[in-house]
């Protein structure tokens, strides 16, 4: 009983601004999932109701992890990691194929995306590895370990294939290493080589002649780096927006029109023509392209509200990192914030056409059960760090 009261007192120390931001984002998400599906007649249970249910489950996890002492992660992070890897392997064998990729595992009629669980597992494990139990700072032999351990789920996710989700691992691991105190030089070099690789791939897709590549070379190159045709198409569409506006470029083009025609104030809730008339494909409007629906209907103002909410979330999360009582807390917060931020940034950038289309959801807003629960679970961990901040 005493224990329980102590726990409740912990809740009072929670970062209420962050909770408010989280709930606001969830509400925005539910509203626009409703808008994106309001013209649909085919689904028996409405997606927004499902999303509310998922949010409730997620919020329970959120308060649960807030109360749970993150320092006990040391005991369970390996277990969690192994489970995630097993799920990622399982999805390759037993996964349900949707739109050509095996990303889903069905548990009693509920679809789970192991790739989302994998991200969190890597963050949790990373936080433990980068903060030795004995407060022994200095060289970090575990840095390479982390790369190796992050590499396993990352490769498995790429195999699904889900390149977008796989790439999210990189900035997350980088940020954690950076804050953990890894030397800046190798990190910068890693980032630089990453950028170089991306430039090389883009060049190989767009300007093979400049690189002195014949079509045969090009094919061989793509085979070597395992760039699939649809990925190549997406890159080409990104580089040449006018190309094939009815085919691969459709989502991107329609999303841009939706965003652009929103203007300053938008067309009003439920009034987005792009969305309602089905120009924005109905399969992606409530999920990866939900931000397009928001921007069309609420305009620049609405988009800025969402953008600011993420800004506040990032500030709150990193503030928790700053006031954390130990290194593990700091790195945990940075990792989680980076994960949420990367998703949000890449998703919004893709929606307005400044990044190629990759299937990455908008955290807390896009429709999707696994990611909603995982996000809230992770954000709960930030609260867990915050309520146990130094000075308790």
């Amino acid at each position, binding site marked *: 009983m005493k224990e329980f009261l102590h726990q409740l007192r912990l809740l009072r120390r929670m970062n209420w601004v962050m909770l408010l931001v989280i709930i606001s984002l969830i509400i925005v998400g539910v509203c626009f999932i409703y808008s994106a599906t309001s*013209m649909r*007649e085919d689904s028996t249970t409405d997606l927004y109701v499902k999303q509310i249910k998922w949010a409730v489950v997620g919020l329970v996890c959120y308060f649960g992890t807030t109360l749970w002492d993150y320092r006990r992660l040391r005991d369970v992070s390996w277990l969690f990691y192994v489970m995630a890897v097993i799920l990622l392997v399982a999805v390759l064998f037993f996964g349900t194929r949707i739109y050509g990729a095996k990303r889903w595992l069905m548990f009693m009629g509920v679809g789970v995306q192991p790739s989302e669980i994998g991200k969190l597992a890597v963050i949790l494990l990373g936080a433990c590895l980068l903060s030795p139990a004995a*407060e022994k*700072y*200095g060289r970090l032999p575990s840095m390479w370990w982390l790369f190796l351990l992050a590499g396993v789920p990352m490769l498995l996710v790429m195999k699904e294939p889900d390149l977008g989700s796989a790439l999210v691992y990189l900035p997350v691991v980088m*940020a954690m290493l*950076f*804050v*953990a*105190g890894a030397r800046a030089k190798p990190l910068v070099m890693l980032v630089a080589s990453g950028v170089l690789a991306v430039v090389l791939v883009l060049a190989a897709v767009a300007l093979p002649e400049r690189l002195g590549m014949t079509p045969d070379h090009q094919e061989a190159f793509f085979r070597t780096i395992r760039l699939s045709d649809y990925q190549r198409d997406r890159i080409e569409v990104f580089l040449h927006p006018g190309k094939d506006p009815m085919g691969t470029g459709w989502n991107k083009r329609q999303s*841009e*029109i939706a*965003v*652009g*025609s*929103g*203007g*300053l104030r938008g*067309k009003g809730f*439920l*009034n*987005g*023509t*792009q969305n*309602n*008339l089905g*120009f924005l494909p109905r399969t992606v409007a409530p999920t990866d392209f939900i931000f397009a629906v928001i*921007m069309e209907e609420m*305009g*620049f103002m609405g*988009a*800025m509200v969402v*953008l600011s909410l*993420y*800004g506040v979330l*990032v*500030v709150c999360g*990193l503030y928790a*990192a*700053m006031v954390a009582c130990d*290194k593990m807390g*700091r790195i945990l917060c*940075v990792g989680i*914030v*980076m994960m949420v*931020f990367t998703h949000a*940034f890449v998703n*919004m*950038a893709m929606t*307005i*056409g*400044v990044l190629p289309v990759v299937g990455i959801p908008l955290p807390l807003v896009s429709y999707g059960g696994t990611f909603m629960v995982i996000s809230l679970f992770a954000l709960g961990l930030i609260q867990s760090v915050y309520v146990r901040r130094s000075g308790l």
Partner: protein
Amino acid sequence: MVAAGETIILELKRIRVVLIIMLGLLLLLGTLLFDIQVSRSQEYEASLHKQSLRRIRLPAPRGRIFDRNKICLADNQPCYCLAFNLEDIRQAGKWKKTVAEVQRRIGELNGLMGRKAIISEEDIWLHIRRRLPLPLVAWRSLDQAALARLLESSVDMTGVDIYVEPNRAYPENELAAHLLGYVGKTDFSDEDLAGFQYYLPEMEGKMGLERKFNEVMVGKPGERLVRIDASGFKHAERLVRAPKPGANVILAIDGRIQALAESVIKDVPGAVVVMDPNNGDVLALASSPTFSPNQLVPVLPKTLWEQLNSDPAKPMLNKAVAEVYAPGSIFKPVTALAALNSGVISAGFSVDCPGYFMIGNKAMKCWNPNGHGRVDLRRGIEQSCNVYFITLGLKCGNEAVSDMAKLVGLGEKTGIELDREASGIVPTPEWKQKYWHDQWRNGDTCNFAIGQGALSVTPLQMAVVAATLANGGEVFRPRLVLGVQDAEGNALTNYPVTSVRRLPLVPGVMQAVRRGMHDVVMAPTGTGGRARIPGIEMAGKTGTAEYGEKADRKKHGWMILFAPYDKPRYAVAMVVDDAVSGGLTVGPRLHDLMMGIFEVKETLKEADG
């Protein structure tokens, strides 16, 4: 702990760096958003509007078909439809509610008008999904009574529109059905609909002149642009291009003669063609039994279609052009022309007819078993003496006869603008070798000379022969269509009179044959005497040809005729199935036809004057 304190400071510094990078990136995103949504908003707005414009294909009024006296044979009649405009009925919330509301109103109006709507719940859903900005037609071809009940009632009419759809109608019902054909719903090709999001039902010709002249009658479809608002409803509309009405087709057919022609064969399977021998105009072309095209539009009932096609009497077949018959004795004038023109005989050449003709040891019977006695050309034609014509055929040879048959247009299509025209057969030794793998014998020549054997003709071809005999040797191409006029009556195309050839005849030959044909009708003993009418001198030739199983003894009765004898204005060919003989079965029918025509003529004269 100093070292630890330093690392903590480093970590905090680096967290700040991460924070600054993140906020910087969010700011960058905000700037890009501003650029797209505010600065370049116009640009996207424009492409959005372009997207929400829908093009609707508007059907053009179909051209009409007139007879030579401007009597309308194929017309467009308003068909009153009742349609829902879903934008006015749209219920708040889910579409399900709107559908339920539409169904409720359908039920209400069903009761009021006493007619069931033609749409089901699925149709409503389909309409919402595919054709939302268009009216949803729920009742078609409403009659006056239903309309009156509707207008007098106090039922809520918001969102309900009475609207008029042009419907093909044939005012004279069966008249010229085989010529006109009928229309059905257009099967649009992808090309037709390219660029259009919506279209309304259109009609296209499926048979007869409706099909042959579909291109000119169909006109040019119009185009309407509709701007769709957020919920898919019509927001504003603009007529971009008015539909261009199709052109009218003017036929050479004289509706009144056509009606007469149809009436004289309506009780028996057969065909009749009336031509103007002076220019080849087809004044009437009838086939029996017939059908009513009005029953086939706007939608062809499947059971009726099956019934029409399985009927052994073939009501859909235009026997005047698509069926071939053995001509029998009506071919004899052609044999006579061939023999006379080849110079092997003169008109005075005579033969003694014992009632049969021996070829080798086989006797070919003359139809009169007692024999005709001594017959010359004139009497040979009048009596249709087989022995006389067999003799002529053998004398001039089969080649002279087949050449003459081809010259008068047999064995090839006349080129009339109708479906499935048959060409018939003019047998030659080469033909027999090719198809029957046998050589030509004298017996073949004998059969050929009297219009039997492999020789086959269409009634239209025999009408051309009759016209050629009537005008003294000019073979005209039958002219069914006089021209095409636009909706205002300006001529677009005129189809000229076309002479195929002038027969290369020795002077006097035609006169001799015509004299014989005159006697067929006018002489007291002539085989075609039953066709005679008071006051008009006519000429003709009867014929009877067996068909089907020999045991059935079924015969086609034929007669060709032209009148008046001196200055012919009408040339006729008629065939009927299951006849006793040409003279007995066809003669009286032609009598009725010619009586009618010459009465018609009097009124025509007044009209012309």
